[in-house]
C-alpha cells in the first residue's frame, strides 16, 4: 500500500486489522518485524515550507533525502546531523526518505558536535495506531509546549505511528573544511587523541578512528577560522604522532561504514563511554572495527551468529545489531522496569498492534 496523502493513510490505518510493516525507502531499517503488509510512505512527499532566513525546513515524510539535501545545498545550508547512507552496508537498493531517517534517528560523524537527528527535529505529524492524525512540536526551534513527542517519534523505528511530516532546524553549510590525520595509533591512544581534540576549544565536528588507516579530526567554518583551528589542533594532536592534512573524503566513507561494505559477517554498533571503548573492543573478537563520535560510537563486524552481548558482558552503554541474525534481539534488551514503560507506550499509541510488531520488544 502506498497512500498519496495523510488523509488516505489515516483511512488505511483506521481500517487495518492485521500487522503492517512500515517503509520509507526501505534503505535503513534494522531488525526483523513480524510479517505484514508493507505500508509505504513514499507518496507523502514534497516541501511544505523552507525559510532559509529562519533555518527552518518542513517536508513530507516520504520526501527523498537526496532531494532535501539538494534543496538545502542550493541555499548554502544543510541538515546538521549528517545522515548516513546505509545501502552499501545493508546491501539494499531504494531511495532513502527523510521519514526513514527520522524513524531510525540516523546520525553521522557530525553528531559529536551538532547532535543527533532528534536534536535537529523540531516538529512531526504522524498517524497513530487508531488512525488519528497527531501534531507535536512545530516549526520553531525553541518550543517546550507540552510533552515532547517529537523526540519520542525519532528513533521509534515505526513502532508508535506513521510519520507523515517532519520539520527540521537546519544550519549553514561551512565555507571551508579541514581534516587532520594521525597515523599509527593503537585504539586507546586514538581515543585519547580524539578526547584531546574534542576537549579543546576548537569546535571539532568529526573525530573518528579507522584502525590501519588513521585517526581523523575535522573542523569546519569560515576559511580563516578553519586554518587557525586546524593549526591549533595540529599542535594538540602532535603529542600523539605526526599530523598530516587530508581531503575530506574519509568522512562519507566513515559515515556510511564503507570499510565493512561487501564483507561477510554480522555488524553491530556500540554506544559507549569513549574511554571504555578500546577495552570492550578487545573483548569483542571483531574482524573489523571503526570508531566514530570520538569513540562514543563503535562499529564492529563479527563472525555471523556471534553472541556479542555475551562476549562484552555488562558495560555502561548498549549494543545494537545492525546487520545479521545472530546473538539475540537486534535492539538492546531493556531493564524490566523500562521495558514495561516502552511496552506501555507502544500499547497506547498502537493499541491494535499494527506497526512493525515485535521489532523493538
Amino acid at each position, binding site marked *: 500500500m502506498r497512500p498519496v496523502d495523510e488523509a488516505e493513510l489515516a483511512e488505511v490505518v483506521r481500517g487495518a486489522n492485521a500487522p503492517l510493516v512500515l517503509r520509507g525507502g526501505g534503505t535503513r531499517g534494522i531488525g526483523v518485524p513480524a510479517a505484514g503488509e508493507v505500508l509505504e510512505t513514499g507518496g507523502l512527499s514534497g516541501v511544505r515550507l523552507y525559510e532559509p532566513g529562519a533555518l527552518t525546513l518542513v517536508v513530507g515524510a516520504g520526501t527523498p533525502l537526496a532531494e532535501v539535501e539538494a534543496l538545502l545545498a542550493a541555499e548554502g545550508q544543510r541538515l546538521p546531523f549528517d545522515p548516513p547512507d546505509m545501502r552499501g552496508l545493508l546491501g539494499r537498493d531504494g531511495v532513502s526518505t527523510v521519514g526513514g531517517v527520522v524513524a531510525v534517528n540516523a546520525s553521522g560523524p557530525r553528531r559529536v558536535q551538532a547532535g543527533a537527528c532528534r536534536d535537529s527535529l523540531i516538529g512531526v505529524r504522524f498517524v497513530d495506531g487508531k488512525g488519528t492524525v497527531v*501534531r507535536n512540536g512545530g516549526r*520553531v526551534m*525553541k518550543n517546550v509546549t507540552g*510533552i515532547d513527542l517529537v*523526540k519520542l517519534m525519532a528513533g521509534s523505528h515505526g513502532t508508535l505511528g506513521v510519520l507523515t511530516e517532519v520539520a527540521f532546524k537546519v544550519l549553514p553549510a561551512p565555507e571551508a573544511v579541514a581534516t587532520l590525520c594521525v597515523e599509527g595509533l593503537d585504539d586507546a591512544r586514538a581515543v585519547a587523541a580524539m578526547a584531546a581534540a574534542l576537549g*579543546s576549544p576548537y569546535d571539532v565536528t568529526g573525530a573518528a578512528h579507522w584502525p590501519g588507516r588513521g585517526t581523523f579530526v575535522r573542523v569546519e567554518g*569560515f576559511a580563516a*577560522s578553519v586554518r587557525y583551528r586546524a593549526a591549533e589542533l595540529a599542535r594538540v594532536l602532535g603529542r600523539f604522532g605526526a599530523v598530516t592534512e587530508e581531503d575530506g573524503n574519509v568522512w562519507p566513507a566513515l559515515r556510511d561504514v564503507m570499510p565493512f561494505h561487501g564483507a561477510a559477517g554480522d555488524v553491530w554498533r556500540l554506544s559507549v563511554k569513549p574511554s571504555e571503548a578500546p577495552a570492550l573492543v578487545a573483548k569483542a573478537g571483531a574482524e573489523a572495527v571503526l570508531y566514530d563520535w570520538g569513540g562514543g560510537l563503535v562499529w564492529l563486524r563479527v563472525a555471523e551468529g556471534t553472541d556479542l552481548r555475551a562476549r562484552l558482558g555488562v558495560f555502561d552503554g548498549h549494543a545494537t545489531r545492525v546487520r545479521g541474525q545472530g546473538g539475540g534481539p537486534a535492539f538492546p534488551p531493556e531493564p524490566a522496569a523500562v521495558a514495561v514503560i516502552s511496552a506501555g507506550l507502544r500499547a497506547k499509541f498502537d493499541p491494535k498492534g499494527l506497526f512493525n510488531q515485535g521489532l523493538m520488544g
Partner: protein
Amino acid sequence: MEMPQPDPAILARRGRILARLASVLPADAVISDPAETRAYECDALTAYRCLPLAVVLPRTTDEVAAVMRACHEEGVKVIPRGAGTSLAGGSLPTPDAVVIGVARMNAVIETDYANRFIHVQTGRTNLSVTGAVEAEGFFYAPDPSSQLACAIAGNIGMNSGGAHCLKYGVTTNNLLGVTIVTMTGEVLRIGGPYMDAGGLDLLGVICGSEGQLGVVTEAWLRILPKPEGARPVLMGFASNEVAGACVASIIKGGLLPVAIEFMDRPCIEATEAFAKAGYPDCEALLIVEVEGSPAEIDEQLARIKEIALRHEPVAYREAADEDQAKRIWLGRKSAFGAMGQMGDYICLDGTIPVSELAFVLRRIGELTESYGLRVANVFHAGDGNMHPLIIFNANQPGELEKAEALGADILKLCVEVGGCLTGEHGVGVEKRDLMSVQFSDEDMEAQLRVKDVFDPGWLLNPAKVFPLYVTASRRAA
C-alpha cells in the same frame, strides 16, 4: 485561575500521612508547620499561592523512592520542586499534595573530562554545574537567566533554554541520562554517560514533562570546552522591521552567533533610565555576540558589520575591550530589573518564526494600546523566542486580570503566526488553559498517553500543563 477541589479524604487523613512520611524519612526532612511550608506556597509565578499538605526534603534517591511509595499507597498527589524559580507555576502546590523538593540533593557525583560529562544530583544549581567544571576549561551550555538560583531538576522539568540556544541548544540537547523515580517508587535509569540512550527516546519525553512523569534525582549532563573568547556588538535601528530583517540576513549569511538579543524602544528607555548603559536613542537594538579566538571574532564581526550596514543602522558599536563589552551587555542584563522598577510585570515566553518578527511586534503594540497597558520587548531574536513584559499595577483591582488577558492575546498571536505558547519557561498553570489554542484535543490526548504510562493514577503534578477539562476523567479515576 481554576484549580481542582482538594480531595477531602486526603485532607482528613493529614495526620496519618504526615506520620507515614516521618516514618520513612529523617526527622528534619519533613516539614508540615504552616509557618515553614509557607516558603513553598508558590514559585516565581507569585500571583498564585497555596500551602501544601507537607513538604519533604530528601537527601538521596532512596529517600525520594520511599516518599513516592508512601504517597502512592496513600493516594496522595506529589508536586516535584527544584529551586522554585518557575515563571509558569510549575511547582505551585495544592492543599492535598506533598511537595518533594530536591534542594538538599546537590552533590557532584562524577566529573569526567575525557568523556565530557558531569554526573550530578539534580538539586544542584545550573550555574554551579559550570562552576564545578570551569577550572578545567569546560562549561554546561544551557544558561537560563535564573541560572544562579535554578536547579537542574527544574531545568530538566521545563527543558530550559537561555540566551545561547542558537548555537548550543536547550536542556534536552545537553542531557545524556537521568535517574528518575516513578510514582510507585521504582528507580529507573535512562541513558547515562554515553550518546543515545537506546530504545524509545524516553529521555526526550522526560525532559520538559514538567514533573508529570517522575522525580528526576540524578542527571548526566554533556559539558563542552569553553570557547577562547566572546565579544558582543551593538546595533541600533530606525524600526523593529529593519532590526528583524537584519536578524534574518545575519542567519542567512551563514553566521551562527551564540546570541542575538533584541530590545524594543520601551525596553531601551526603561533600561536606560535604570542602568544608564548609554544605549543609542532608537526604535530597536540588537546585541549580537560571537565566539572564538580574537582573529576569528574579528572575522565574524567584519561579516556581521557588512550585513548590518546594508540595513542602515542608526548606531553600530563594537566592543574594543572587556569594559566596553560589559557596557553593551549592561542594559540587556538589567532589563528585568528595570521593568521591576516600572511596576509589576508578567513575562511571556512565546516563540515565533523569525520571519514574523516585525509583524508580531506591530500587533503586540496595537493589542497593548487597546488594553491601555504597557509592554516592553526583550528577547532571543535568533531563535524567535520572545519575552514580552506586560507592565501593570497589581494593587489596582482588575489590572492583573487585564494583563493576563493581554498576555493570552499575545500568545494566541504567537500560535497564529506558526509559533508556540512557550519556548523555555514551560506551561505550568500559567499557560495551561491556552493549550487548546495550540493543540487539538487529539494532539493533547496523544501527550496524555505518555503520562498514563508513567503515572497511571495521575498523582504527579496532575493539574498542570493540560486544561482541566482535558484531564478531568483521568484525575477523577
